[in-house]
């Protein structure tokens, strides 16, 4: 079963610091831009919702056609956003938690400026492996 999924990490200052297409379907050029646009539009909803609850995993917060946006907000207000078409809530939650751990390890690097792009290829490989495992 082919799934579309677009994963973006947005920093506290609303700057995307990492993006990846993690679905199993083939990547199409126009689809990628559309996904990013939808995720960007969902940022407003996240901002309001983040202050109403202390839980990190906010489930599906926005829809577009048949695609759903799920969001996970960390303590430092870094948002992990996933645009997907499946309904696998538990899998998505585990995916976010594992990526959160990876993100903390990147953040602990004293030479990493918080809010700057994550360029590590190892991080990219691991995120895709986690996506294949849970999504």
């Amino acid at each position, binding site marked *: 079963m082919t799934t579309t999924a677009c994963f973006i990490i947005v920093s*506290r200052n609303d700057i995307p610091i990492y993006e990846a297409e993690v679905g199993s379907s083939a990547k199409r050029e126009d689809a990628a831009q559309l996904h990013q646009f939808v995720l960007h539009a969902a940022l407003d909803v996240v901002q309001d919702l983040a202050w109403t*609850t202390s839980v990190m*995993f906010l489930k599906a917060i926005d829809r577009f056609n048949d695609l759903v946006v799920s969001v996970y907000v960390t*303590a430092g207000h870094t948002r992990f956003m996933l645009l997907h078409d499946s309904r696998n809530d538990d899998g998505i939650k585990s995916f976010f*938690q594992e990526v959160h751990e990876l993100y903390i*390890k990147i*953040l602990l690097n004293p030479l990493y400026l918080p809010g700057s792009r994550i360029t590590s290829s190892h991080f990219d490989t691991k995120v895709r492996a986690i996506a294949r495992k849970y999504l």
Partner: protein
Amino acid sequence: MIGVGKIKQYSNVLDKPLSKGKQEVSLSAFAFLFSELVQYNQTQVDNIAELERRLEDAGYAVGARVLELLCHRDKGNRRETRLLGILSFVHSTVWKVLFGKVADSLEKGTEHEDEYMISEKELLVNKFISIPKDMGTFNCGAFVAGIVRGVLDSAGFPAVVTAHFVPMEGQQRPRTTILIKFAEEVLQREARLG
């Protein structure tokens, strides 16, 4: 061959698991490192305000990371959304992890609505430091003030944080107070959330 044990060799830091945080660092090693940090910055600046700002910036980087790490490790992935929540998080959890004990007291300022104070009888970073008379009101606690500012800022509560000496009668060394003054938007949001 001796030495080739069963310890897994991790090639990348991303593969290593996050530490549990039970590690301890020797106080003298930290005091030595901190004194070198202050001395290094002293050679780079020509006035006190700049020196305080540099120590604060160093602390800010620590604070941003400490917040994420502690929320993940000690608080089971729950964020703080209320003012009192984040203040008591700083006062107990952060202090306990950084200095081994909770802060001495957390008070609300009487003159202004947006001021809070965390007091400590003897701040760990100031323990082995004495300030010469000609440096006036300089306080190395600016490093800790920077840590607190880093935690608050990353959690979405922008504030101006400074460290002050408060002389106490009956004690030789003055008490250190970290003064936190929140930005206007924080109070507005608090009022809105009710």
